[in-house]
């Protein structure tokens, strides 16, 4: 049976199990004097029956679908003669591809080694057997589960308790997905990075001043020897983030203070949502804006001042990134400032301080930890921002602190290295994962510190 029709019949069986289970519980309750003599509502008996029927079968189906393909191809390959056995992973994939294309009829068998053609037939046969086996196994499992549930059913059975146990387990599983995701991220960047650090020493990567990831394809090729010193990338990232923070922190903080402390409620109700629009604009739009409007503008202004400005200057990318982060800083600062107790404000004003003195000398120091936490989150956002720099910053890794020069960043390099074809055995591709690891670790540390600071600050005034 094909997978979709198998799925549909399983679902049908599960639904059927629900009705039969519910019916049986009602029938069992009838001699006792009605449904109220059941331990749980009939609904729960039905759900319990369908869980027994569906859950094991669906689990089996999912596991099978994940593992059958690699298993079958391994069996097919191992049955092939010695001289055709692949030596590397790439060769293996190529061979499997060829066999699969032969099997599906996309490739004609003419001029193909008879052993390979044999393997294709073998594959088809195994796939057919596996499909049959799967259908029989899942349907039998579903029936067995249902019969078990049916047989064990009695008016004293704690059906609701059992169903709720499964329900809670499912909820817990969903919550644990967050941990699984973190683990997945950590493992994916860590493993590829470790492979990268086997060819390029970690110290060279972290202290090298030269970044040119083009590696030679042939051994005798001139040039493109590949050097993986990531310092220029780190400097470029920090330079652009610094420019962004120079825009975002003053503008975000002051607008938050103005809107929270001075503005009338009408101004506030208009200005706040309009500023929030900046947070909702996709980063690709900012990138387009930076590359086509801001960068030429910066260059024109620079040329007017007789400065030499690169057409992909760090300044343009940083300015636009700063604008993007303004609402982020301002909404975090707004939360923090509103959390400062009113009594502190009243006390300061009662002593004769002006409004701005109250803000500068009382509210700001009180809110400082929260604001620092917010700024740290904003920095982590600037470091990880991708599209603006991909579209508006350069590609050449240059070690400079001049904001008018073109620099490149960690995220730009990850994108350029991983877009298009990738070979997972060259240090060029793997270096992107090493950069990803750096990015992940740095932003994770920043976030953890920031969240801790903000949390402690909140507890202080609660």
């Amino acid at each position, binding site marked *: 049976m094909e997978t979709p029709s198998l799925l549909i019949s399983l679902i049908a069986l599960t639904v059927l199990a629900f009705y039969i289970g519910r019916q049986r519980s009602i029938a069992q309750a009838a001699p006792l004097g009605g449904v109220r003599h059941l331990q749980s509502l009939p609904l729960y008996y039905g759900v319990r029956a369908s869980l027994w029927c569906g859950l094991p079968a669906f689990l089996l189906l999912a596991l099978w679908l994940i593992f059958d393909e690699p298993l079958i191809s391994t069996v097919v390959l191992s049955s092939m003669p010695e001289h055709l056995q692949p030596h590397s992973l790439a060769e293996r994939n190529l061979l499997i591809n060829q066999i699969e294309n032969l099997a599906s009829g996309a490739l004609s068998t003419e001029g193909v080694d008879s052993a390979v053609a044999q393997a294709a037939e073998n594959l088809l046969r195994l796939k057919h057997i596996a499909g049959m086996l799967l259908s029989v196994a899942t349907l039998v499992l579903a029936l067995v589960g249902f019969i078990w549930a049916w047989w064990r059913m009695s008016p004293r059975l704690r059906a609701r308790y059992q169903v709720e146990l499964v329900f809670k387990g499912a*909820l817990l599983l969903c919550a644990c*997905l967050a941990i699984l995701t973190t683990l997945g991220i950590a493992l*994916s960047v860590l493993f590829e990075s470790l492979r990268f650090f086997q060819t390029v020493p970690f110290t060279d990567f972290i202290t090298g001043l030269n970044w040119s990831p083009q590696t030679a394809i042939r051994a005798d090729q001139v040039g493109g020897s590949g050097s993986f010193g990531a310092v220029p990338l780190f400097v470029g990232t920090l330079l652009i983030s610094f420019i962004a923070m120079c825009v975002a922190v003053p503008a975000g903080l002051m607008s938050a203070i103005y809107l929270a402390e001075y503005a009338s409620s009408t101004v506030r109700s208009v*200005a706040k949502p309009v500023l929030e629009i900046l947070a909702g604009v996709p980063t690709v739009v900012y990138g387009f804006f930076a590359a086509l409007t801001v960068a030429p503008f910066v260059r024109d202004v620079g040329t007017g001042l007789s400065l030499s400005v690169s057409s992909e200057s760090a300044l343009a990318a940083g300015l636009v990134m700063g*604008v993007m982060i303004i609402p982020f800083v301002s909404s975090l600062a707004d939360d923090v400032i509103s959390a400062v107790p009113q009594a502190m404000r009243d006390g300061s004003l009662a002593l004769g301080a002006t409004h701005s003195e109250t803000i500068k000398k009382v509210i700001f120091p009180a809110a400082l930890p929260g604001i620092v936490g917010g700024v740290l989150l904003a920095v982590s*956002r600037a470091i990880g921002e991708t599209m603006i720099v991909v579209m508006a910053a350069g590609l050449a890794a240059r070690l400079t602190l001049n904001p008018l020069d073109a620099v490149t960043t960690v995220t730009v390099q990850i994108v350029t290295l991983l877009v298009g074809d990738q070979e997972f055995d060259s240090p060029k591709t793997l270096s992107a994962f090493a950069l990803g690891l750096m990015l992940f670790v740095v932003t994770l540390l920043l*976030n953890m510190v920031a969240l801790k600071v903000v949390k402690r600050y909140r507890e202080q005034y609660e």
Partner: protein
Amino acid sequence: MNNRSRTTSGAAALIQKSLARRYRAERRFRWYGIAAVVFGLLCVATLFVDIIGKGHGAFRQTYLHLTIDYDRDVLGLSATAAASELALADYPALIKQALLQRFGEVSGRSARRELSGMVSSSAAYLLQDRLQANPSLLGTTETLWLLADDDVDTYIKSLRDRGGAFTGRVSEQQQLWLKALRDSKEVRLQFNWNFFTSGDSREPEQAGIGSATMGSVLTLLITLLLAFPIGVAAAVYLEEFAPKNAWTEFIEVNINNLAAVPSIIFGLLGLAILINFFHVPRSVPLIGGLVLAIMTLPTIIISSRAAIKSVPPSIREAAIGIGASPSQVVLHHVLPLAMPGMLTGAIIGMAQALGETAPLLMIGMVAFIVDIPGGFTDPATVLPVQIFLWADSPERAFVEKTSAAIMVLLAFLITMNTAAVMLRRKLERRW
């Protein structure tokens, strides 16, 4: 006595003097605040004016009015041509012939090439479709509005600019021809339906966002189907069932951190785990939706938790008091009451996913997609990635297309966010 009053007046004078300074500082501080707000508002205005100014033109496209003579000889058809031969006929020659007739004989190969270069290469397919649908047209003439080339389109649209027309690759001879056409009203701008229905193309005048929009819809569908139920379930567990222990704390720390992890990292996750390990095919809505679901999950969990938290405990206590089990409390009372808040969070999460580009670049959704994807495993791209691809194209006409695609994307996002706000206003209860 006397002495004391003098010091008071001295202090008063001092205070008076300092007051002026302090009020100045107060006003200055206020102005800083106003300047910051105005700066932010100006940025919003500049962004929108810039994008709309660049992109509004793309919604209309230049068409040229030509009289087409479906001539057998020009088409290269024999006198007894069968219907099957129509597919192989020389349709570009028809357009060339029509242009030559309109402007008289043009000498020189380059001049002839310039002449036929004014009409888009897609016009020939239009003629083919018309003739195949209605073979009786053969031997007759008809006048049609044919799509102009992108260079011509840019030139015609720039004629109204104050800074003078942008000629670009349009030659002087072509300008003369176009002037003749304009004088006899044989050039017009028509609403560009093509932009919404067709897929990507190397030719700007034929390129559209149809396939990218469909790709976005399919991708977001997967994201919604995965992220919303799982996010709500996780939120319910954390708010209603989780014991206060180290494990729960660990889950919460993970969720909060994931919400702040750069989006590009999720692309690395998709590439290394989903594509390389689980062999999910690349460039399809399925993998895009999976990655975006993982990415938006923390957002949805956090907003759903806030929605559950806002349901007052008295509701739960009342339900428990009349004998409901904890699961019944959640399913019958808490979830229905928290649903508006959760839906709002889900819409905001979907808006975030709709605008996301970076992780999709890693998992091969940057493909050149002409056909409109029909399923979850067809190669597809999404709107923001289409914008990214067009922004990289050198043709000037693509600037207009890119801005127009951005306008469409922003329209979607604004609609979604407005819907979220309306939903919150309409359904949210104040307890």
